Each structure stands twice: as C-alpha cells, then as structure tokens.
C-alpha cells in the first residue's frame, strides 16, 4: 500500500476532485498535463536552477546541539526558514509559475491567509513579469499589514475577500470564483496540498525537494538517509507533505504531524482538524474538515494564521486515518514558549506555525540516539508583533 496519491488523486478514502462543472476544463487541463510537464528535462532544469540560484537551495540541515541536549535526543532542523521570502512556500510557487508558463497562462491568481503564500506568489510573478491577483480575507488584511505591503511592492493586486467569515477559506472561495470567471488565461496557484486533484499531488511534488535534500544531507552527517522521525506542523500541510514525501512509504521512518490546538481542543477555539474534523468536502477535495453536524464549514482558531485552515490536505487525512502518521496537537501557549526557547537556545526565531512542531518535546519523549528531523518551515520575522504582544517584549 502506498501513501502517495493514486492516478485519480485519492489517498485512501481522501482526495478526488469535487468541483462544479464550470471548473472542470481548467482543472482537467492541468490534470492531464502536470505530470508530463514536470517530467520534461527542460522543466526540471529550470526548476532546479531557480531553486538553487533564486530561492537559495539546498537549505541547510542543521544539528541543533543545545536544543538536542535539552530534550535528550538528536534533533536536526531543516532550515526552510532560510528560503527566499522566509518560508518553504516559495518552492511551490516557483514550480507552479513554470507550470503556468508552459500551459500558456498570462494571469495568476492565489489565495492567502497570513500572506506568506501571497508574498511567495507575488514574488515569482514579479520574477516572470506576469500579472498577479491575490485574494485575502478582509480580516486577514487588517491583521497582516506588512505582508499586504510586500505584495503591493512586488506589483500584485490584493483583493479583499468580503464574503463569509472573511478569512483564508473565504479567500480560497473567491480565488476559485475568479477562476470560474476567467477559465482561459488564468492559472490558480494554490498554496497548500489542498483543493481538487491534481493540486494536492502537484504541490506535494514541488515541496518534495525538502525530503530529497534531507536524505542527501543526513547521509553526509549521519551516514544514513533515514531519520527515525520526521516532524512538521500541519495547517493545510504543504511543508509537511514535502518533508514526508520521500519517506511516506518507508516504514522505518516515523511521521509526526503537529496541529494547532489553539486554546485547547475542547475550547471551541482550535484548529486541530484530525481531532475535531469529520470526513467531508472542502474546496473540491474529500478530506477531514471542521464542520457542524449539518455540514456547514466552521471557522478554526489558532494564534498562528498559517495553521487556521478548517481542513487538512487529503494526504494527511489518510496518514491520520491509516495510523501511518502520529498526530499531536499543541496549544498556543506551548507553541509560543517553544518559539522563544529555540530563539534562546539556537539563535533562530521561528515562525509561530513552526513553533508548534518544536513544542512536541515537552510531552513526546524520544530515545537518546533517535534522530528527529524537524522541518523548520518558516522564519519568525512576520510574527514579531505577535511575539512582542504575547511576551511583552
């Protein structure tokens, strides 16, 4: 049994493409070509060159000595925070902008929550000289002013999503509506391993560079390709998908997914989809999602804007249901403390999303010689005001 997507885009029970007929031609055009395009030598060459020269890959795999000592195990950090624009998101946008060019599209749309994916999309659009429209919830625009300014500086148009709860899920709805209204010239760069097939698989493949590098780097440092565990935070789950990708079907490697418990799983203010979600359809994908008994999608909460998505990518829903992945949820408080701790012990200020993954060691114990790789998905610059407010810095 494989934990990768099958040819219909299903991971076990999850995935597929539950889309209105208006979207069918757009999605079908992409589905029928994405694998062939990605296999082209010229595509791979251009993609790898941009990842190296523009994004700054390979990102280091860093042995966090003081952090390891504190928790009595061997902890490596995969430094995606050192990517251009400050997070792993750009791996996917570089891949998708090249895909869009090969599909002959000259207009790009994207959704964004905290603004990281919006910035990464605006960045590659500037690089390629392609028009860029980013949908962002009206409430998120107020909360994330620096990223809005970055996108504007990069030449993107930021359109406020004013429907529903005016956050990430509504921005995604608005982007999908734009795509329905502009079926011919537009490519939609989805920022996570969510949405209809082929998006979860395509985004996972673009992010797979993370685990491809971990294998090579771990071999150099520890003379083995496989860690005992690979740990990542999961909102939609794109950094996790990339960190797990080449280990999914290797039972020697434990997979740990860390979700945002918010103020506690039972508090009513949480984003822990595996604990609180039920099977359903969101944004064209069958997956686990937070919803009412009546099937209305509910608004999640986390202190981290990148983790408050009411669903989870279908790959992760399958990892959860099959038992292949170990799912842990971390509260706002535990995450914030872990972020501060990493700053003090290693001189690295992580994004609050990533801080959730760093926080598991208080309760989840590992053996002394276990090798644990944490995907350090993003840097904390964007979260400074939250850290300042929280700790009274």
């Amino acid at each position, binding site marked *: 049994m494989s934990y990768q997507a099958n040819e219909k885009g299903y991971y076990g029970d999850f995935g597929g493409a539950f889309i209105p007929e208006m979207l*069918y031609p757009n999605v079908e055009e992409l589905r029928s070509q994405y694998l062939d395009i990605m296999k082209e030598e010229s595509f791979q060459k251009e993609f790898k060159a941009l990842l190296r020269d523009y994004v700054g890959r390979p990102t280091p795999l860093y042995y966090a000595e003081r952090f390891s000592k504190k928790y009595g195990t061997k902890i490596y950090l995969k430094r995606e925070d050192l990517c251009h624009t400050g997070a792993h998101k750009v791996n996917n946008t570089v891949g998708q902008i090249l895909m869009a060019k090969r599909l002959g599209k000259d207009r790009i749309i994207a959704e964004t929550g905290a603004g990281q994916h919006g910035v990464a999309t605006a960045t590659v659009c500037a690089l390629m000289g392609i028009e860029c429209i980013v949908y962002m919830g009206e409430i998120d625009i107020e909360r994330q002013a620096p990223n809005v300014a970055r996108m504007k500086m990069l030449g993107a148009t930021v359109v406020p999503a004013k429907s529903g709860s005016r956050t990430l899920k509504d921005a995604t709805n608005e982007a999908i509506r734009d795509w*329905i209204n502009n*079926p011919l010239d537009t490519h939609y760069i989805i920022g996570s391993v969510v949405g209809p097939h082929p998006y979860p698989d395509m985004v996972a493949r673009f992010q797979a560079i993370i685990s491809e590098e971990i294998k090579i780097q771990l071999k150099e440092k520890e003379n083995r390709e496989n860690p005992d565990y690979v740990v990542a935070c999961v909102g939609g789950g794109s950094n996790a998908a990339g960190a797990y990708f080449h280990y999914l079907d290797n039972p020697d490697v434990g997979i740990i997914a860390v979700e945002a418990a918010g103020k506690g799983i039972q508090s009513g203010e949480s984003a822990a989809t595996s604990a609180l979600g039920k099977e359903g359809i969101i944004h064209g994908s069958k997956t686990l999602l937070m*919803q009412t008994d*009546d099937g*209305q999608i509910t608004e999640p909460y986390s202190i981290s804007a990148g983790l408050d998505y009411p669903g989870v990518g279908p790959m992760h829903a399958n990892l959860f249901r099959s038992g292949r992945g170990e799912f842990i949820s971390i509260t706002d408080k535990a995450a914030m403390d872990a972020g501060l701790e990493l700053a003090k012990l290693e001189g690295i200020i992580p994004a609050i999303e990533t801080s959730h993954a760093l926080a598991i060691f208080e309760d989840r114990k590992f053996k002394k010689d276990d090798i644990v790789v944490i995907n350090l998905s993003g840097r904390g610059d964007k979260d400074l005001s939250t850290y300042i407010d929280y700790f009274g810095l």
Partner: protein
Amino acid sequence: MNRINKKLQEDHKLLSIYFTAGYPETDDTVSIIQELERNGIDFIEIGLPFSDPLADGPTIQESSTKALKSGMTTNKLFEQLSGIRQSVKIPLIIMGYFNPILQYGVEKFCKKCGETGIDGLIIPDLPVDVYNEEYRSIFEENGIQNIFLITPQTSEERIRFIDSVSDGFIYMVSTASVTGSTSGFSPETRKYFQRISEMKLQNPQVVGFGISDEETFNQATEFSKGAIIGSAFIKHLNHNGKNKISDFVKTIRPV
C-alpha cells in the same frame, strides 16, 4: 411519468425560479413556493443553504449566510416541506452543495426527498463521473432525477456523456461565471445556445446564470426549453420580502 419530464413536454417556454430556503425569513420557504406557483412559475429550485457556495456570487452567498444565521438546517427544510404536495403541483428541485448532503447521508437525503415529493436535485460540486460510479443507483431507487450543468467550455464529448447520464433536463450555464454576474448576453453566448441546440440532445436544455428580465429570458429561451432566474429574484426578496412576487414575475413574463 414524473413531474419534471411531464412539465418539459408542455408546449411553451418554461420559467423557473431559484430561491434560498429560509430566506428572507426562516419560515418563508413554503409561502414563497406557493406564491411562485400561483404566479405561473413552471418549476422551482429550492436552495439548501451552505457556508461556502463556490459556484455562487455574492447575492446568493449572502442569502445563504443569512438563512444559516437565523437557524436554517437540512432537517428544518424537510420539516417545512413535509406536506408540500398537498398544496403544490409543479416540479420542485433542491439545489445544494455536496457536503451538507454527505453529512445528512446521501441515501437518507434521497429517500427523504422522495417521501417529501421533491423531484430532482442539482448538486454543483458532485461531478458527473463520481455520481455515475457511486451514487446513481441511490438516486434512481428513490425516483430522484439528478440535473447536471454544462458550460460554454464543456467539450462536446463530455456534453454527450452528461446527456447519456441525465434524465430530465440539462442545466446550461450561460457564461463562464458564478451566479448573478452578467448583464445581457453577448453574440458568442447566443451562438453557444444555438450550438448546443443543434446537438439534438435527448434531454432538453434549460439556461441559468445571467437571466434577470424579459429580454434576457427571451434570449436565453430562443434555442432552449426554458430559463432559471436566481440572483435577480433574491434581490427582489431583499427589497420586498415575500410580498409583490407577482410584480417580479411580470417583469419577466408580462401578462
């Protein structure tokens, strides 16, 4: 013969209205249906409200949000509709997104529709292929017709497939757009109506999206059996509540 197919055989252009159940007031559902029938509407689409209606524009989304806020649920809709067949004769179709139906249980939902006297369903985000493989038998056992959408971008091969799976009519989306977003049809759109008409499909076509008045209704039905009005009617309800429905119908189909 079922109500939808019987209606499609009538010798005139059909006018259908969409409205969101539980809007403008939670308990308006039944009286709006009755008033629409009284004013000569040929069949009705009852919208099952959803939090995230991807294929709809702001007018219909706002009506859904408001209906949900005031307590509309799937169970409540079926409660409201129980006994509807004692007063209403025209075909009734529920239009809703797949997730609420999935949570209710597809089989239970179809069964409940059958018992209530609902004739068909339109589920925009249930693709025809998935329906055909996984759910078709459930619909057929309960006598529920599933109506599919086509758009100007739908390939001829796919239209033929949709036609072969359909029983009733084909919902022809007028332009590549969400609901409520166009004003008037372009010559290209009218050519598309004609092109589909010339395919001689086994199911008649009914046009939806972008119809708001007598002129657009007449254009839409030049080559098709009928047309569906949604957002324009919701806007009327916004301004007038459930009163003066006859005035609205007269703007489409003058007496």
